[in-house]
């Protein structure tokens, strides 16, 4: 059991008073960063690197590396906790991985269950964080090899499964959901094509070379769309604001969320291990999965607690899973882990196959501190829930300008161009119009995320196979994923044709 003794050494490192302090500062900043849209975990971590460098300057190099990476990792998963807050309260996703949380979280808030939603998000995140860490300790080595086996063909099939599952995000009409998915896929083609290097739909506007920024689109559609709706329909809820019911979830809430949290944690963890798949996908997948397995799929989108618990667990699980390729292979699976890797390199700690041998103090100290950080986050977040939940009682006349300000500020902080601010407004109008006509917004956002991944991986696979499409069915993992995707669409159709009344999404 050398792993155990290493882990105990790790705890010794992490429990040193100064490292506890660093972990606390990290999760505190992370929560704040997560709450503010725009300043996501990526920029939060990037901006703090120079600060931590000077904070740890008095320590020996090895200790300094351990301490600052503990702080930065704290920011990373703190942001995952905090990201749910604005999604639930203001329909404004703090980062891309909490977009799906808006679907049910905001509805819960409108029903006066904001406190419960926030609390369950924190609990789910905590459980997922712990699950991911146990997975990280036990499965790091074998999983990193599996992640490597995931080639372009396997990714393509996984994304196809994601697309097939989009039905789970449909509102009243499946057709409209598919229209939105295709629109999302089309929007995702804007920019420099990563496979051929050709510029598509850019009209020589250099702002468009990088494509549409996901966050701009999501915040526009969800947050500003909602604001426009409130203004134009003159919602008179100043008098009858949803009351905050209880803050803590009831026993039945907990019972209802236990399954989603468990499934979301595991799904998130395994999705996070795959480089490039990431927290956003994990949250979408887990939401769709919950809707599929739920006995009451019709409640989703109307404030189902499982619709908050699952994606929030998943995105936190994914951030733990993403540590595996980073630490064992030196391959960052997401933007944030790429920056964490840069920070490690700055301290002469090269993540990669040799990390656990050459710098056990850093690697195990980090893992142990994540346990501690998660506990801190839970303690920090539960009392804050009461404070945050009060936001929902703000009268509309103050709340709406606040949402607009946060959205504009957030988008500008990431993109630093007024172009994106205009884009934000345009998508706000579009989001309003679409929601008015019962087009679901989430499939569009999912299409935008999946589009480049589907396309790039398909073309990578085909380039490698010299244009032979059989590559997708020759690889076993890929074949299995494709079959599941096919069944996902085919089974409900067949059953419907045979006249069975099952819950297809049309009836919700």
């Amino acid at each position, binding site marked *: 059991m050398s792993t155990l003794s290493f882990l105990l050494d790790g705890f010794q490192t992490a429990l040193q008073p100064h490292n506890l302090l660093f972990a606390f500062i990290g999760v505190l900043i992370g929560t704040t960063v997560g709450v503010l849209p725009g300043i996501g975990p990526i920029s939060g971590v990037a901006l703090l690197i120079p600060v931590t460098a000077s904070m740890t300057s008095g320590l020996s190099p090895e200790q300094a590396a351990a301490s600052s990476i503990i702080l930065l990792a704290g920011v990373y998963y703190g942001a995952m906790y905090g990201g749910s807050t604005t999604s639930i309260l203001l329909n404004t996703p703090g980062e891309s991985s909490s977009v799906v949380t808006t679907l049910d979280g905001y509805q819960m808030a409108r029903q006066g269950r904001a406190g419960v939603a926030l609390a369950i998000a924190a609990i789910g995140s905590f459980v997922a964080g712990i699950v991911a860490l146990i997975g990280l300790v036990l499965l790091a080595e074998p999983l990193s090899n599996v992640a490597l086996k995931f080639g372009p063909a396997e990714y393509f099939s996984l994304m196809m499964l994601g697309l097939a599952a989009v039905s789970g995000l449909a509102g009243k009409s499946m057709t409209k959901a598919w229209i939105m998915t295709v629109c999302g896929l089309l929007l995702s083609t804007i920019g420099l094509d990563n496979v051929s290097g*050709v510029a598509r739909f850019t009209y020589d506007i*250099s702002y468009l070379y990088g494509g549409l920024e996901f966050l701009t689109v999501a915040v526009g559609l969800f947050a500003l769309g909602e604001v426009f709706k409130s203004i134009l329909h003159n919602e008179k809820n100043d008098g009858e604001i949803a009351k905050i019911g209880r803050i803590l979830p009831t026993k039945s809430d907990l019972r209802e969320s236990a399954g989603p949290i468990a499934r979301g944690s595991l799904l998130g963890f395994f999705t996070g291990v795959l480089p490039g798949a990431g927290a956003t996908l994990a949250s979408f997948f887990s939401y769709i999965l919950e809707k599929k397995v739920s006995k009451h799929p019709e409640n989703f989108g109307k404030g189902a607690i499982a619709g908050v618990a699952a994606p929030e667990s998943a995105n936190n699980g994914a951030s733990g899973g993403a540590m595996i390729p980073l630490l064992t292979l030196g391959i960052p699976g997401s933007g944030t882990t790429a920056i964490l890797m840069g920070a490690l390199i700055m301290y002469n700690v090269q993540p990669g196959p040799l990390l656990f041998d050459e710098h056990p103090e850093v690697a195990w100290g980090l893992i142990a501190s994540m346990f501690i950080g998660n506990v801190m986050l839970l303690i920090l977040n539960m009392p804050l829930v009461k404070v945050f939940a009060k936001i929902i009682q703000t009268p509309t006349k103050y709340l709406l300008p606040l949402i607009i300000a946060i959205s504009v500020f957030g988008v500008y902080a990431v993109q630093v161009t007024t172009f994106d601010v205009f884009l934000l407004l345009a998508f706000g109008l579009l989001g309003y119009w679409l929601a008015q006509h019962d087009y679901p917004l989430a499939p569009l956002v999912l299409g935008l995320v999946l589009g480049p991944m589907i396309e790039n991986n398909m073309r*990578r696979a085909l380039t490698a196979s010299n244009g032979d499409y059989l590559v997708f069915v020759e690889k076993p993992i890929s074949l299995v994923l494709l079959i599941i995707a096919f069944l996902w669409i085919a089974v409900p159709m067949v059953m419907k044709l045979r006249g069975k009344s099952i819950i297809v999404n049309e009836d919700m």
Partner: protein
Amino acid sequence: MKKTRWRGLLAAAMMTLALAACGGNESAGSKPSNSSATNYPPKPITIVAPSGAGGGWDLTARAITKVLDESGLVKQTMIVENKPGGGGAVFMAEYATQEAKNDYKLFVNSPPIIINNLKKEGNSPFGYKDTTPLAQLTKDFGAIVVKADSKFQTLTQLLDAIKQDPKSVTVAGGSAPGSMDHLVAILPIYKAGIDPKSIKYVSYDGGGEAMAALLGGNADVIATDASSVGEYLKAGKVRVLAVSAPERLDGVLKDVPTMKELDIDAEFTIWRGIFGPKDMSREAKAFWEETLKKLSEHEKWKEELQKQGWEAEYRNSDEFTKFLQEQEQQVGDLLKSLGMYK
């Protein structure tokens, strides 16, 4: 308490004045506010990283400002500004047209400033000629890497296999065709007389993903930065066939031949440098030339480079400009051979 602070401030102000006067012309009457040659810069300096926070350009900009500040080489406040968009094209368009005379805004860049200006797709209409190159500060090289158990033992074997059947070898890199990793991969192939258009190149999103593809057996060979392969080589996971350096590198890569040693006339430096506006005033240019030279020799800068794992290579403004011309020629040839020239 309050009084002491005021006195401190006053003392600081006096010292600044004194320093400014000392640094000024020998004539004692020179006013510090005059922007005479040695009084530049009279106001804060912005150094732009034309990318988001956390990338290579951003780290470079932050390292430069940090050392300039800590070493006292520049006494004015320095701010790092991120201007992402279009691989730097968004920033260049604004800088070259609206800030051509702004002595207080510099920026960092690397070979993409040349590549983006020459390539057909995603073209940036402005290049290094619309700026004043001030200094090159770091260097890195391209590396051709295969998996440790690959059948290719040498670059020559690899090139022979590609010559025989270009479709049999999957080449991968961390960026789209027409950008840096692609060009580094193509360079030895092109110089060996193989039609680069026939190569099966698969682009990944960043060097890390390309490395994952190599280790997972989804690519036969990748081109990446020499500085990023050391760890994989030490762990015995990969074999480096060649580097695009003019002479052998130190450290882990010391046994890796250069392309030139293998009779392939290919060399490519992935530099990072700092630029000023096109119509920079003579005073400002002189100041930065001198300051950046001092920076390149400063202990703290060397420490910083080591921390970041960068290698130093200093070229002054003239040498740097000449070097950029050469690289522009090389990149132009490569892009033409690929049919990707603007």
